[in-house]
């Protein structure tokens, strides 16, 4: 169907919200609470627009498009309403972006940038809240929380771990883990879903803090090396340092739709670990190892295999392939055994 946005005719699909239609057509409407996975919360009221024939401002995340609808996203009325909300948010927290890990990806920052707001103009004298650093992998800074509700919706409705909720202290909303425990003492399983979905820097990945800013990392798709669910990963990589900075789940992937567990999201230390093997090793007669070149190691293995094969037959050699190696590598491994060594003695640890 066709609708009009800011005077231009654009295509939209039935059932879509105004927000989705705008996004599909490259028209920016700031929003803080809406997320594809948790849907419209109607909380932040930053995504308001004007619709011809309707009174007042409408939240674009909750109103569906209709044929011929005429929408304005940048009228003075809209901008003023948006400014009011964003100004209020900037004034009630500590939103200093300089060392924030969300810098460059923050949806509040994007909204402020779009509206030309440098800082909050109101002074509420809101008291500083303590950081919650009790969790092994997740860092919580409530001073940056904008109470959008995404994390609460995600923890309860997406990963269904049912840890996060809003608590009310006086008339101030705040997020709480279980009965307001420190995150690390709560029943949280540290899946990190709340961190991935938080639009600001209130919930971030602890191990990534200060490692690289969003525009410095390259994003590479991979698949989780742990269990067999096969969650799709987006590795955030600092190529120069040759390091993984952060791991996200890929939204919309058929296996995990952005979700991960604590291992898949945070268990990547082993990749860059100092104990990684860097070169082939050959055992000395006294039982210690010495470094060897590839030539020497391959030469030794092939000589020993020939020797054992000619003395005892190929069936005295056994190969164990790996449930952690790729298909390509398992293929070459069994081909090596069948074609080159000449035995079908190949198995894997899958059943263990």
């Amino acid at each position, binding site marked *: 169907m066709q609708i009009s946005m800011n005077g231009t005719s654009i295509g939209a699909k039935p059932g879509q919200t105004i927000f989705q239609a705008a996004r599909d057509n490259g028209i920016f409407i700031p929003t803080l609470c809406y997320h594809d996975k948790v849907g419209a919360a109607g909380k932040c009221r930053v995504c308001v627009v004007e619709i011809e024939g309707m009174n007042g401002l409408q939240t674009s995340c909750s109103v569906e498009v209709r044929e011929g609808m005429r929408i304005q996203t940048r009228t003075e009325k809209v901008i003023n309403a948006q400014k009011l909300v964003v100004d209020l948010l900037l004034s009630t927290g500590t939103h200093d972006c300089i060392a924030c890990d969300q810098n460059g990806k923050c949806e509040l920052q994007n909204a402020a940038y779009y509206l030309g707001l440098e800082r909050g103009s109101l002074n509420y004298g809101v008291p500083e809240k303590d950081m919650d650093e009790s969790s*092994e992998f997740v860092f919580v800074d409530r001073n940056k929380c904008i109470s959008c509700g995404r994390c609460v919706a995600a923890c309860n409705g997406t990963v269904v771990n049912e840890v996060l909720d809003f608590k009310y202290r006086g008339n101030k909303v705040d997020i709480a883990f279980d009965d307001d425990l420190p995150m690390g003492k709560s029943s949280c*399983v540290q899946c990190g879903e709340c961190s991935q979905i938080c639009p600001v820097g209130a919930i971030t990945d602890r191990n990534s803090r200060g490692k690289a800013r969003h525009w410095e990392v390259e994003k590479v798709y991979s698949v989780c090396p742990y269990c067999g669910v096969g969650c799709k990963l987006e590795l955030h990589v600092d190529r120069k340092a040759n390091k993984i900075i952060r791991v996200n789940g890929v939204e919309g992937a058929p296996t995990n739709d952005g979700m991960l567990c604590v291992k898949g999201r945070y268990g990547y230390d082993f990749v860059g670990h100092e104990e*990684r093997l860097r070169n082939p090793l050959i055992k000395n007669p006294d039982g210690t190892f010495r470094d060897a070149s590839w030539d020497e190691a391959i030469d030794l293995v092939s000589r020993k295999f020939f020797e054992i094969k000619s003395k005892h037959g190929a069936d005295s050699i056994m190969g164990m392939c*790996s449930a952690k190696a790729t298909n390509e590598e398992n*293929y070459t491994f069994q081909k090596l055994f*069948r074609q080159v060594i000449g035995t079908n*003695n190949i198995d894997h640890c899958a059943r263990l």
Partner: protein
Amino acid sequence: MTNDIAGLDKSDVALIIGSDTSEAHPVIAARLKKAARKGKLKIIVIDPKEIRMADYAEIYTCQRPGTDVAVLNGMMHLIIKNGWEDKKFIEERCEGYEALKEEVDKFTPEYVERISGIPAATLEKIAELFGKAETAALYYAMGITQHTTGIDNVKSTANLQMLCGNMGKVGGGVNPLRGQSNVQGACDMGGLPNVFTAYQKVGDAPVQEKFERFWGVSLSDKPGIPMTVAFDKAYDGEMKAFYIMGENPMISDPDLHHAEAALKKLEFLVVEDIFLTETAKLADVVLPASTYAEKSGTFTNTERRVQLLFEAVKAPGEAKHDWQIHQMLANKMGQNWNFGNAREIFEEIRKCTPSYAGMTYERLGFNGLQWPCPTEEHPGTPVLHIGKFTRGLGLMTAIPFKAPAEMPDADYPLYLTTGRILQQFHTGTMSRKSPGLNNLAGPHAMISVQDAEAIGVKNSEKVKVTTRRGSIVTTAFITKRCPKGTVYVPFHFAEAPANALTINALDPVAKIPEYKVCACKIEKV
């Protein structure tokens, strides 16, 4: 899995048996929990531990370890007795029904209660909920397979799903949850002693001929031996050399003392891995390999979905991709392999692997493809056995109940069962390198409140767990989730290895060790 992950919220009922889903497969657990909370899906959990999924279940019950065949036969007994079976499905698509019916006839709820400890009334409720469901799915993991009756257990799950007509339909199926990222792929690629890629049988004349032509050499038509047997043969001095890629049997093998002795008797041991693992330490030659983040290639997940990985970082030092190592060795031994990258290997795989034939890296794209995918036009197969089983008629098999190899007795009065926890993985080669994961979960034994009281041990105190194979000292984790009489030890920890305790008793066909049941005793230290 016969079915796909995305379709699991299409079921009315899900039976989880022998899978601690939220610990071992958390993201599948999340989807099941979500469907349950939304109100459509009713979950039944049958597990010796009161696992977290039980909190989301309509019915939870605890069976004695190793009694799954009796429980499943008991469900089928009741389903047939009440006429809840899918007569049309059985008639048109299955064979062996009469024999199955005769076998399950004696599994009355009272008889099953005596074997499994599940109250007769509970079994009746379970059978009714499951039997009357329009579409019911069954999920299991190692809790079904790691038994001397592993194959029997697996066949029983298939019996139940055929009986209820839950095969070949969205939201149904028999769904084993694979424990490692590419177990499925390792099997698909012929990493098994009796089959080439895509389960083409070793010794089958046309298959032998095809691969001889394809690889240009004559091939052995004698099926190889499974790994567990190879360890015994190594121990007896019959096997001379092992080449182990990326696995750590020194932690994962049953009866570790036996495994270590076997490896030490070898004339030559090659280990290809990313760390100097417990197993690599015993090797004569260690070859440094790459992690998932350092390579391109494909993994095949539990729902048969082939997905792409891309190289994100460089491997340290001179470490190589596993395939490069195999190529160097093959060429040193007289072949002339010429693979330039993973994609070229995949192109070769397609040519000899019918279920992957229609896949290309381009087609895999963002979503991947589920096999079978025989042609480049084929969309892949989310649900297997729609309309017809691969073998034609679905085979129902009468399965008698057999007790586990070792049962508790006066000397070793408790059941020992082993498994995984959320924060660690397998032998720990990867997960234990993370200080954060280690802080979250160290070695422990889960003990019931009653058993802990009996020996006077408190939470976090040291406890010694002993079986006829050996003993470990570990930390007591006392929990209501463990029933009286059962001790649970996660197997990830080299310093308190569960497999110093487990029994080297194998399923006669699949050669899977019975990790899920043996007899033990506990003492305070």
